[in-house]
């Protein structure tokens, strides 16, 4: 099945999570997500998500000049972003457990 619909809902959480420990520019974020197993995440979706989180005040951004090629804009999680990450993680775990339970019951039935 097409997992892109599933991915969409959790992309915010995933992006915040991969930026939690280390700032990164757009392509870093994309690589970390793909490296983490989210192969089907769309390139443009990641960039859109970064901008939305930034506008929501959850990310900081700064431009790092580059000798070759265009300058890179790095994103990092700020305090509000960390708070959101904790909340979302809790919500996700509760949701995931609930869904696990439902799925197990369905399988057992």
């Amino acid at each position, binding site marked *: 099945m097409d997992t892109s619909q599933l991915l969409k809902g959790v992309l915010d959480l995933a992006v915040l999570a991969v930026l939690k420990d280390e700032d990164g520019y757009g392509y870093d974020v994309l690589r970390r997500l793909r490296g983490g197993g989210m192969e089907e995440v769309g390139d*443009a979706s990641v960039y*859109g998500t970064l901008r939305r989180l930034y506008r929501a005040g959850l990310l900081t951004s700064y431009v790092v000049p580059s000798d070759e090629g265009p300058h890179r804009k790095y994103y990092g999680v700020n305090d509000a972003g960390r708070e959101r990450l904790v909340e979302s993680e809790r919500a996700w775990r509760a949701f995931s457990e609930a869904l696990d339970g439902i799925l197990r019951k369905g399988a057992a039935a």
Partner: protein
Amino acid sequence: MNTTETRQELVDYLRRVRAALADLPADELAEVMEDVEPHLAEVLDETGDLTGRLGTPEDYAAELRAAGGYPPPASADSARGKSRLAARYFVWSTALLTFTCLVVGGMLAQPRHQEKYLWLFFTLLAAAPGLVWVFSGYLRRADVESLPEYRFARARGVAAAGLPSPRVVEFIRSLRPGWWVARVVLVLALMLVGATEGVVVAVVVVAFLTWAGPRSSTDRRLLPLVVAGNALLATATLTVVLYASDRSSQRPYEYVSPGLNYQGKYLDNVYAVDADGKPIPEFYLYDHEGMPLNVVRNSCESSSRAFDNRFPQPQVEYRGGQCVELSGLPFVPLPPNATLRPSTTSVIPSTSATTTPVSPSPSVSLSPSVTTTPVSSAPATTTTG
């Protein structure tokens, strides 16, 4: 990999993504493109094929728009198109206003061409809707700044402003406090020139600039009006300076109507008679300094504009399409001492009439024309003397 070809692909892709997202606020769009540009460059380096991995630029833009939580383009497009039209109207009408201010400023010192105030009024009226949109917030700065003509003008403006050396710019800046003195001087100069309406316009503009000038550095909405006002004052100052220098250099040659005047009346000709009333056929006039009283010679040769002080001038008349020069008196003078003699005519001139040539009888007239000559018909004056 062909570098030029891939660069071109990158440029095209970027352009189409930007076009598809053109309805985003300009600042946000710039931020997005700052992310997208290195991304596409990197994808291109890795795969060499943007569309294969990312889809069409429009797909890419749509995905980014959806994930970014930006409003869908359909509804935004019409609003965007409307505000784009409004922005365009604003830019062009204020540009026209500035141009009119330049022209009217240049004509401010002239009392003629009163219709220039009408032009100013109408262009101000035409610019009014745009200004209302800007000040009401209907038109945002980004709308105006995204216009290609604005970008073009701005690029040219920056290039032109970069031409003088920084020291010159610094020097001009340091003169800024003196500008209001220059403005007052301009108003006074216009008063001296006698351009009353010009003074009114200049005073209004100066008052406005005094208020708006300092504010325009923080409130950019005032900028077009400040630019227009300064344009008007600039050309007005320029022409007043030119006018003044022109006047001072030309004063010796100030235009005076040529010819002779007697008690404020222009004299077509001057005649002289001797004590017996006999016309003097040719004489020459001088003033008290011995300067000849030269006037334009009447002549049938219209091309020759000779000056001399020989009188009486010939009378020039057109008869049947032919130009003829006539000499002689167009009237018959009364001898100056006629009152001392027994008169044989029926006319006895009044005391006030002694200096007036009176024609007692047309029989001896040398005149081909008597229309301009004072002629007294005899019986009316018999009561005096």
